[in-house]
């Protein structure tokens, strides 16, 4: 998705929607503050927080040193201490440096303390490939977060979700991790509706009858493009946007599969032991007798993402690969 000039009808970019959500939150509750590397003077490494420093000042738009574990942990402590911190970790790749804090402390504290302590922390991070950033800046580790009891994991794929997911995430008394796909920031589309959005349900982004395509974040757009191509061939694909990666809304997925009897999971994570595996396994477990064909998965090739564009394109899920998977399914049935 490339940044395009605003059209005649009112539009908003994904980035601007995220920024407006931050602005709302900061205005609405003085316990809310944003901290992370270069969120302030630099304007956010992907420009999400640009301008907020001027409005809210350096205490609430708080630049940190390069200390991922330190400032994520400080966010946990600040949440315990009564604040509502939003921590920005530049990318999910770097979040591995703070993974211990999130998994072993933030997610565990409530249960481990017998329900005495709560960590109302929001952690935002960029994820995903497609921008030729190579093996240390391009991976999609959302599935790892979705494995962890005690966390809620969100992945906005639409301007509406970018605009409205933050408020309920901040209202959650437990830690929430929000993934923003780097390729979506510049995407511009119709202005969001009035909100709110719920944080419980997956969403059907396109209705269809022949096959269900399931994805999240940027993969929803891959699935939508594939559905468009399939429609030209007379195949009607339904597209499910997971939205909430933990806890997964199995009901919506199963409801769709009960109508289409076929499913393809599209995921930018690697295939083995990734998010796609869970979605496929759940369908096969709970809708086994509904399925006309085995669930298929279209994921990123199991390589550290390469820089060269032709190689990166070949590694990532593309609409053509989704179309091919659907065709193979029809052929096999």
């Amino acid at each position: 998705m490339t940044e395009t000039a605003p059209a005649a009808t009112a539009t908003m970019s994904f980035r601007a929607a995220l920024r407006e959500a931050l602005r709302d939150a900061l205005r609405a509750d003085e316990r809310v503050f944003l901290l992370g590397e270069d969120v302030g003077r630099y304007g956010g490494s992907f420009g999400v927080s640009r301008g907020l420093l001027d409005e809210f000042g350096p205490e609430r738009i708080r630049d940190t040193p390069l200390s991922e574990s330190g400032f994520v942990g400080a966010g946990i402590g600040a949440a315990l201490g009564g604040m509502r911190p939003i921590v920005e970790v530049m990318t999910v790749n770097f979040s591995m440096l703070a993974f211990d804090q999130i998994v072993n402390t933030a997610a565990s504290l409530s249960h481990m303390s017998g329900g005495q302590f709560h960590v109302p922390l929001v952690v935002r991070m960029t994820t995903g490939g497609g921008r030729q950033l190579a093996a240390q800046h391009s991976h999609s580790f959302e599935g790892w977060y979705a494995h962890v009891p005690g966390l809620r994991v969100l992945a906005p794929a639409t301007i509406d979700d970018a605009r409205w997911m933050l408020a309920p995430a901040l209202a959650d008394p437990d830690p929430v991790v929000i993934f923003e796909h780097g390729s979506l920031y510049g995407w511009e589309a119709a202005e969001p509706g009035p909100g709110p959005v719920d944080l419980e349900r997956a969403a059907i982004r396109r209705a269809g009858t022949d096959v269900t395509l399931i994805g999240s974040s940027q993969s929803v757009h891959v699935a939508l493009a594939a559905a468009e191509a399939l429609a030209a061939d007379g195949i009607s694909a339904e597209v499910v946007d997971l939205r909430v990666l933990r806890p997964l809304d199995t009901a919506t997925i199963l409801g769709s599969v009960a109508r289409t009897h076929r499913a393809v999971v599209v995921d930018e994570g690697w295939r083995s032991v990734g998010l796609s595996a869970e979605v496929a396994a759940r369908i096969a477990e709970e809708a086994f007798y509904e399925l006309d064909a085995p669930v298929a998965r279209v994921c990123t090739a199991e390589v550290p993402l390469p820089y060269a564009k032709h190689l990166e394109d070949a590694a990532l899920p593309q609409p053509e690969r989704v179309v091919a998977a659907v065709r193979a399914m029809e052929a096999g049935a």
Partner: protein
Amino acid sequence: MSGDGQISAEAAHGLHLLREMVRIRRLEERCIELYSAAEIRGFLHVYIGEEAVAVGAMQALTAEDNVVGTYREHGHALARGIPARRILAEMLGRVEGCSRGRGGSMHLFDAAARFYGGNGIVAALLPLAAGLGLAERMQGGSRVTACFFGEGAVAEGEFHETMNLAALWRLPVVFLCENNRYAMGTALERSESQTDLALKAASYAMPAWAVDGMDVEAVEAAVREQVAIVRGGGGPCFLEARTYRFRAHSMYDPDLYRTKEEIARWRERDPIDAQAARLRERGALDDAALAALEAEVAAELDDAVAFARAAPLEPVEDLERFVVTEAAAR
């Protein structure tokens, strides 16, 4: 005892310090017995020998301050005011335990006491303490956060990230490094190229010094001084308390890495004996008073053990409670 049978405030405080240390010592001796009887399981890390640090430090804090500790935190929990009953019930895995039996020895928690654990990942509690300080600063409060950790944590990156954040943002945190010379079996001089720990803190432009961690009154004085700096807006401080653990690292530890002589030398500096001797010298303690104190502590612990043993278990159906916050607590 002072001439008129009244004891001075100073003597009373000295006795209080002694009593607190004895309570911890005897509590942990019970823990060891209960462990041997397989009533306590998992890892058990006792604080025997180091009691002066927690007891001295707690005197300098108010009920409104925050306390953050490690997996070697029985002493801190007790000195902070968590009843022995709830501590032992926790170690016995009971629902009346201070973490409802979900935490065990390493994860004692108490929201009312502002006791934030009981943290099992070495050094991971340091950023958390900084965050508590940050919340306090942003809310304009006057709470101090006391963060206890072992000298082994100094090698972890998180220690350094936290020292820098705390100093940079002038957070109201007292970093209390319990230097008992060993991290499990690794002596400080085999794990740090520079063993003067205050120098590390100084490289963050933070006030830092060392204190004799076997002297409860010295610890109290030092922590009072640091808390005053911190509460006065002087930013964080670092205190190295030089101490020693008399027992093995945990009940699993064969203790092969140090000599009996070394342990014996340090036992001569037992903080309880030292405080008792000091009080005797001041005329504030005699054999009868000590025996009475011990008897009171024994009674407290008899009661606590009985309470813990009788306490119910969390129903198995409730296993998945508290993974996320319950509606009632929202």
